[in-house]
């Protein structure tokens, strides 16, 4: 590594999606472009007695079709979705792990809820039936690194592995870490995240922060930047992506893949009551500096879009300070899925790369009248078609985590990504 580390580019060569907008990258992208929502009444349990009854749920996900049978009883729903998405991403990238050295492949995921549903189930068995009824797999299923570990074991990836827990910001931090590992010599990093916070225990754990929308109309429940913003809808799923050194991708004929991780920065907000401003503006600026990209070169921003009035205003102000009033198109397709926590930012990254690929900014379904002070060019009503070269993805996690990622479309001179169609959403 004696030569310039910064010269080692990290490109994304594969995408796997398991999200409320669909299973499979193209199913997801079609829903996003059409503004088709995956939010509905919670069906994983009876939400009647809870103040929050809407969520983004993955339609038609059956673990037995997507996950090896040995792994199903060992792992939580969140890991099931990640295993399916990781397999789909490898297939999309046309990567056969057997063709790589075990130690050249790494896994970094984000997780926020861990194996909440699995844990609840085993807790119930403990207090209803006794200790011998608790699954031995409780010991490994619940904790945040479980998904990373299972993906690593399944595909024989023995390079540096880790998990990042920064709530919604974690998905971006995972890609920052993936790029760091590529610069340190890893050839390929499976990166991204999913989350499965939709069980009574998982939902109640979120209620205390007061940021969940209690509106029962799925079209009106999650309206970031809108005068009627009422909080966010929770959701499950996410995306797993294959980050690869440009050299490795090029040697395999994958060219520039879907695009390059051009810049990354993370920050942490000052404590409540501090006179210092939130860290989002500086984080954006540092990510742009890292990418060597002036604000004028950014073609689209995928916003964090909290859906909480003061947080929306803070984000809109930071955007205005960096880009000028209505200075850049802003979108938040997450209104179709709800906030996916550990899975949210990686799904945004996947969506941003697809937007770069197709020259199409998906619109933000829901918001109508922007709240006073939100002086941003929010893309609403219909997608916006224009040549896209650079996207900025933002995320804020509960408690002050803040992260920004700059993505750049592949150089037109490099061969295009092989046809990414025929996505089956994972193999068992």
């Amino acid at each position, binding site marked *: 590594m004696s030569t310039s580390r910064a010269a080692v580019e990290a490109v994304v060569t594969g995408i796997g999606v398991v999200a409320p907008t669909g299973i499979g990258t193209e199913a997801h992208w079609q829903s996003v472009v059409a503004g088709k929502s995956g939010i509905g009444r919670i069906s994983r349990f009876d939400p009647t007695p809870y103040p929050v009854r809407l969520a983004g749920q993955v339609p038609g996900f059956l673990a037995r079709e997507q996950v*090896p*049978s*040995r*792994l*199903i*009883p*060992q792992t939580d729903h969140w890991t099931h979705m990640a295993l399916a998405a990781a397999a789909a991403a490898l297939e999309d990238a046309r990567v056969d792990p057997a063709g790589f050295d075990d130690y050249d492949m790494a896994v970094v995921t984000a997780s926020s809820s861990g194996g909440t549903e699995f844990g609840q189930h085993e807790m119930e068995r403990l207090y209803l039936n006794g200790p*011998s*009824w608790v*699954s*031995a*797999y409780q*010991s*490994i299923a619940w904790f945040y690194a479980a998904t990373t570990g299972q993906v690593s074991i399944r595909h024989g990836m023995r390079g540096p592995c880790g998990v990042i827990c920064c709530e919604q910001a974690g998905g971006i931090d995972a890609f920052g870490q993936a790029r760091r590992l590529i610069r340190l010599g890893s050839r390929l990093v499976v990166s991204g995240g999913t989350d499965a916070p939709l069980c009574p225990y998982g939902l109640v754990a979120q209620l205390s922060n007061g940021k969940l929308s209690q509106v029962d109309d799925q079209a009106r429940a999650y309206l970031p930047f809108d005068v009627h913003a009422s909080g966010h809808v929770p959701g499950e799923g996410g995306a797993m992506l294959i980050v690869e050194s440009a050299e490795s991708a090029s040697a395999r004929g994958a060219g520039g893949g879907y695009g390059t991780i051009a810049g990354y920065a993370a920050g942490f907000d000052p404590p409540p009551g501090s006179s210092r401003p939130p860290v989002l503006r500086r984080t954006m600026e540092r990510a742009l500096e890292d990418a060597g990209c002036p604000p004028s070169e950014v073609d689209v921003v995928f916003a964090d879009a909290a859906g909480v009035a003061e947080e929306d205003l803070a984000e809109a102000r930071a955007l205005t300070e960096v880009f000028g009033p209505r200075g850049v198109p802003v979108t938040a397709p997450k209104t179709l899925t709800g906030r996916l926590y550990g899975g949210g930012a990686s799904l945004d990254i996947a969506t941003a790369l697809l937007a770069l690929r197709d020259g199409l900014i998906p619109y933000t379904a829901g918001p109508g009248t922007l709240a006073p002070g939100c002086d941003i060019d929010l893309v609403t009503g219909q997608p916006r078609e224009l040549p896209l070269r650079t996207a900025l993805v933002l995320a804020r996690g509960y408690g002050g985590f803040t992260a920004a990622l700059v993505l750049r479309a592949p150089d037109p001179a490099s061969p295009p990504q092989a046809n990414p169609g025929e996505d089956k959403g994972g193999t068992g």
Partner: protein
Amino acid sequence: MSRITLAELTEIMRTSVGVEEGVDLDGDIAEIAFAELGYDSLAVLELVSQVERRYGVSIPDEAVPEMPTPARAVAFINERLTLEGV
């Protein structure tokens, strides 16, 4: 007095612990090590706890090394069933 058969143990392995890709539990597995069948020590612990619940027998965790194969597991469990007079 209740007894466990190899077929019953195999059924619990199949339904409660799952089957590794490429492993055929219908074959002659009696003398094959659990590890070779894709069941690590945690999987054997889970299998044992399923057996405990279904057969009302108690098997200490420390006994796992006494059950390296399905045949040895069946023999050990039946010994415990006899001892406990279940």
